[in-house]
Structures are given as structure tokens and as C-alpha cells.
């Protein structure tokens, strides 16, 4: 089975392992992701902070290219890209003048019918029921499933999961053999795009997330967003300084955790790319 695939910039750089593990997991379950030819950046936070035209035009270009390629469903692993593409499609579908205008700028039609799916949605739709039969090495850890902001908000546009206490990642991790914990920071902000410009803010916000996960007894934090992952993982020295303690809890992508459970190797899943080591049992 084929499905459209928009990796986005992070998955080609700092979050290479998210792309690796997503593709490896897809392959295991007979799914072939088809990359959008000539895709460009979604504009991320920078565009909607500084330039409102770009904030719509950049994601719209990606959507138009996907449609042109004949794709009907699009897997978007990066939560920020998923959010920008979904919010843009919603804006275009509810504002005919904007749609016409953007379509003219891009010189490409925009039907607005593309189904934009995050990783959990694709797993739930095509893989979930096949996971238990494929588990060879259950991921027997207590896990804190961290959703962050961009997967669940704005809820009226994304319509994904429960708003304040989402469950999809928890359900999937349970299927992979893990024990998902009830905790308080599931959808709190990690500091997002302030990693470079206000590292102190990221250290504090991400520090609170790491601390609560530890206090509840978590042995791994599971994520589905490159920004959350890099803030909680690569910024760990800053987080530890904020918390005044040394923390060793790993932060893994859900695709890596499920991948391990179904027998994929650490190398295939890019586990060596994590800054905070994930030590095998």
C-alpha cells in the first residue's frame, strides 16, 4: 500500500532518526511512503510570526504539489508540519477568496481534499491491529507519552484525539508492551522554537516536563514531534542545570519504541542518534 509522505526539514537534519524509524516501521507493515516531489519548508513558527502571506503560501505549495502528484492521503510525522499543513488547509477550505488568491500565486489548483495524517493516525488506521502479532520483544517500560501542543491544538481544526488528556499514543504504546502512565504534562509546551534564541526558557519548560515524568516513575518519554524531542533530548545539559540534578531518562519517537518491539534493530531505528542514551534491557 502506498501513502503520500511529507518529511519536512527537521526529518532531513536534526531529526533524521524520526524519518529512519518511520520508514523502517512502514516497511515492516507493508506500507510504502511516497515522498512529495520538490517539497519545500512549511514555514514553521517563523513564517506565521513574521510574514502572514508566507505562513499560508508555503504550506499551500506543499498541499498543491501533493495533489498534483495524485496523492489522497499524506503522512506528516513532524507535529509542526502536520499542524501548519492542517491549519492552512482549513483556512483555504473555509475562505474561498484566500484559496483562489493562493492558487493563483502558486499557479496550481488546490482542491483541499487531501487527508493530512500524523503518525498516530496512520498507525491506528493501518498498523495498530497488526502490532500485537508482530511483537517479538515487548517494550516493557513505564512510559510518559508526551504529545506537546501541535498535535492536539487547535482542536476544532485538527480534530485529533482528546484535547486535554489525549490517549492515542498511550493506547499504541500499550500494544507494544509498555505501561503508559498518567501524568500532568502531556500537552504542556516544551519551549518550542526558542531552543536557540531563548535556551533558558526551553530549559525551564522542558525541565518541568522531564521532572514530572521522572516523579511519576517513567523510564522513557515517548514523543511524536521533532521539536519536543530535540528540546527534551539535546537540551538535556541545560535541563539538568535548571533541575539541579542529573537525569538519564531517554526521549524516543513512538516509531522507535514500536520498532524495537517488533524486532527492528537499533541501527535501523537510529537509536544511536539520541543524545540521552536508550540502554537496552
Amino acid at each position, binding site marked *: 500500500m502506498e501513502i503520500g509522505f511529507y518529511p519536512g526539514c527537521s526529518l532531513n537534519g*536534526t531529526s533524521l532518526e524520526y524519518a529512519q524509524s518511520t520508514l523502517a516501521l512502514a516497511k515492516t507493515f507493508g506500507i510504502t511512503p511516497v515522498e512529495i516531489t520538490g*517539497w519545500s519548508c512549511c*514555514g514553521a513558527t517563523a513564517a*506565521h510570526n513574521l510574514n502572514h502571506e508566507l505562513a499560508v503560501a508555503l504550506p499551500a505549495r506543499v498541499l498543491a504539489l501533493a495533489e498534483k502528484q495524485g496523492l489522497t492521503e499524506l503522512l506528516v510525522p513532524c507535529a509542526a508540519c502536520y499542524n501548519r499543513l492542517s491549519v492552512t488547509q482549513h483556512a483555504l477550505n473555509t475562505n474561498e477568496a484566500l484559496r483562489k488568491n493562493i492558487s493563483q500565486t502558486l499557479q496550481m489548483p488546490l482542491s483541499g481534499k487531501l487527508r493530512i495524517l500524523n503518525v498516530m493516525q496512520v498507525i491506528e488506521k493501518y498498523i495498530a491491529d497488526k502490532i500485537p502479532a508482530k511483537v517479538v520483544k515487548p517494550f516493557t517500560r513505564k512510559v510518559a507519552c508526551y504529545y506537546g501542543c501541535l498535535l492536539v*491544538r487547535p482542536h476544532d481544526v485538527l480534530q485529533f484525539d482528546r484535547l486535554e488528556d489525549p490517549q492515542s499514543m498511550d493506547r499504541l504504546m500499550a500494544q507494544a508492551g509498555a505501561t503508559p502512565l498518567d501524568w500532568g504534562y502531556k500537552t504542556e*509546551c516544551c519551549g518550542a522554537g526558542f531552543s536557540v534564541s531563548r535556551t533558558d526558557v526551553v530549559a525551564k519548560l522542558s525541565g518541568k516536563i522531564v521532572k514530572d515524568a521522572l516523579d511519576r516513575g517513567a523510564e522513557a518519554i515517548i514523543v511524536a514531534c521533532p521539536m519536543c524531542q530535540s528540546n527534551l533530548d539535546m537540551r538535556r545539559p541545560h535541563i539538568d542545570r535548571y533541575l539541579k540534578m542529573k537525569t538519564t531518562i531517554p526521549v524516543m519517537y513512538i516509531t522507535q519504541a514500536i520498532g524495537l518491539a517488533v524486532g527492528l534493530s537499533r541501527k535501523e531505528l537510529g537509536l544511536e542518534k539520541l*543524545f540521552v542514551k536508550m540502554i537496552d534491557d
Partner: protein
Amino acid sequence: MSSEQKGFTAEIRSATGVNVNRCYQCGKCSAGCALSEDMDYPPSVVMRLLQTNSAESYHKILRSQAIWLCASCQNCVTRCPMQIDLPQLMDYLRVQALEKKAVNTKSKKIVAFHRAFLDSVRYTGRLYEVGLVADYKLRTLDLLQDLSVAPRMLLKGKLPLLPEMVKGKLKIRS
């Protein structure tokens, strides 16, 4: 309504659809905002100041750190009993601050990062992380920042040294 036809609240409303007068100061936005304790004016105070419709308050907000510290996490609008789209309002205020050259001095690094990001996308069509950080460092003169992280990122293959170029990107630039 007639009192609303002039001034900043009317401008905000026509540009964003946000009617700041709908806010009744319950404070849920400030309570749920992860950044509010770092802000000079928490979100509900931003709303209250805008409601005064005075030039003085408006310029306080444009010059504030608050509008740049907003991470657009959408928690405020999600929990607002009046469904006031504060993140959209923040986007609008940021662009106004840029246009009026009223950017908060403590927030210049945040703006520099966003600018470097967009310039990178403008040149290549995709984000080129090494270029982004080099550009950011030149803008802020923070040349020594993160020198300990970069080598580990390189070793782990997380920092491709050459950018990827997208065909047809000229259309976006214009």
C-alpha cells in the same frame, strides 16, 4: 458599537476578526500559559490593556516582551470561554511591532532567529540548519553559543553540511 469604530481595537478587529472587548478577564489564558511568568504582561493583561483602546496602552503592548515570548501553543484560545483567538492576535501584534519598528529590545534574538530561519528557506526552499545558525550568530554576534552541542550533532549525522536545493522555489520567493 459606535465607540468601537475608531482606534486600535477596531483595527485589530478588521485585520484579525478578534474583538478584544469580548474578554471578561477570567484569567484562564494567563493561568494556562506556559510562558506567562516570563512575560512582562501576561495574556489577560495584554487583553485588558488593548481594551482601553488608548495609544499609550497599545504601544506598551507593541513594545512588550510578551508578544515575542508567546510560543503559539494555543492553550489560551483552547481554554478561553469566549474563544478569543489570542495566538492570532499575537501574530498580528508581532507584525505590527516589526512594521512600526517597535520590537522589544530584550526580544531581538527571537526576531533574529525567525528572520534567519525564513532567509534560509528563501534561499534554498528548505531549512538549512547550519546556514540558519551561522546567520543567527552573525545577527546576534553570539558567536560562542552552542559550541559544545554542534560537534555531537555532526558526529551523529544530525547536521548535513550542504543545503538541499528545491526546484521551482522562485515562485515562492515572489
